């Protein structure tokens, strides 16, 4: 911390309107993230810290500091959280909460939403080849792993489903682009919304409107 203090913009850091030195800011971010079980966004950090503070920079320092430690700094979307290192899970049996077992249908539906988002119910059904049960969507909504996204610009303007930041947090993902194998699947064309041959033009229109081909990607591009 002491070396950071030399970066301090001003020697009179006590001044009411001066941002605290970076070392102090790092301590503050550390304390806030440490105390919170939920991820904290940069925006919220800025609001809570003294005027002029730059939590984004402090986060860079802090992340480095916790590298390789028993507790790590994790990014979840535009929020940050401290989580125990995954290799130490074996010590935590006591802390483990028994999670509800998801049905196979729910797991597949979740994966399809994650990889194809934003995705409509009809598209999920097309991929699974079976209708999506109400209970399945219900359960995923209740767990707050999925939510309604914006409507698709296709006839009927169906609503779409997308995954939430709770989903990302639960699976230790920084953002939905980090989903395992996403690139390969896309390269193999398996995330395309390919209309069946001979289908009406109505279906292929989907591709012009809302960039359905890209699916997943643009929702999380900032």
């Amino acid at each position, binding site marked *: 911390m002491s070396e950071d203090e030399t970066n301090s913009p001003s020697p009179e850091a006590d001044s009411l309107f001066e941002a605290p030195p970076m070392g102090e800011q790092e301590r503050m971010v550390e304390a806030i993230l*440490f*105390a*919170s*079980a*939920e991820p904290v966004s940069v925006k919220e950090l800025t609001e809570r810290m003294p005027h002029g503070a730059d939590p984004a920079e402090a986060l860079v320092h802090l992340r480095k500091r916790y590298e390789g430690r028993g507790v790590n700094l994790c990014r979840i979307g535009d929020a940050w*959280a*401290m*989580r*125990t*290192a*995954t290799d*130490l*899970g074996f010590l*935590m049996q006591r*802390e*483990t*909460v028994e*999670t509800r077992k*998801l*049905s*196979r*249908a729910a*797991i*597949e539906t*979740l*994966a*399809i939403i*994650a*990889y194809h988002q934003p995705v409509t119910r009809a598209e999920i059904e097309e*991929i*699974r*080849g*079976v*209708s999506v*049960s*109400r*209970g*399945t969507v*219900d*359960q995923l*909504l*209740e767990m*707050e792993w999925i*939510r*309604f996204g914006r409507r698709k610009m296709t006839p009927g303007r169906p609503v779409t489903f997308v995954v939430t930041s709770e989903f990302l*947090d*639960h*699976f*230790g*993902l920084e953002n939905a682009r980090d*989903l*395992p*194998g996403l690139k390969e*699947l896309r390269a*193999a064309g*398996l995330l395309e919304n*390919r209309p*069946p*041959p*001979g289908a009406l033009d109505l279906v292929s229109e989907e591709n012009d409107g809302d960039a359905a081909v890209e699916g997943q990607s643009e929702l999380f591009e900032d």
Partner: protein
Amino acid sequence: MAEIPFEEDTMSVADRMAAEALIVDVDGFEGPLDVLLTLSRTQKVDLRKISVLDLAKQYLAFVERAKALRLELAADYLVMAAWLAFLKSRLLLPPDPTEDGPSGEELAAHLAFQLERLQAMRDAAARLMGRDRLGRDFFARGQTHEVTRTRKIQYTATLLDLMQGYARIRTRDDFRPFVMDRDAVFTMEQALERMRGLMGYAGEWTDIASYLPEGWELDPVRRRSATAATFAASLELVKEGHLEIRQSETFAPIQLRKKDRHS
């Protein structure tokens, strides 16, 4: 006739899923595409190079077997069977140049694509669930109540709350006809008020029917309500000591008389 428009909400998610599983679950399969995917595994080749013709044969055999077992086949299984039979004929017969529409090969290629995509999603799902997970492999802060300084109440709601709230209102609207129609109801309070005014004249035994309000005697529904209310009001007045009531035998007229205070 549903008095409780929300009765279905009391069904838990698990119940609902169980109910749906009965329809979808044919011999442990989740839909025709699932069956095809399983069957295709026996071919042990790249899904893109799979023999759709063989697959169609195997599927049709599966459907036959399922029928023999008297399984209730869901409609989508039968639709798929019909479609595969059609595809099979397209693949076997030489293409008819006069015919519009996609060729058998195109249809077969799309089916292969669908199977490959479903398999890819299954693999992706397995990989996803195999990841380190919060609360199982890595953990959040266990003790988060650190400081108690300011207590500010912040109200919050989720989109789900919002939608359920709206759904509740809309459903209530849809069921408005169940709101009781008060037109034909004569309340006991009304009857009491009316009787208090009239009972001063009832020195002799009088049939209770004569106390019914004007205009309520003809329509049977209104008469029933007025009779019940008047009878209940009479009992109330008897209890208060203002009236006497009698009935000579079962189904005989009920008669009322003002109670003599001095007797």
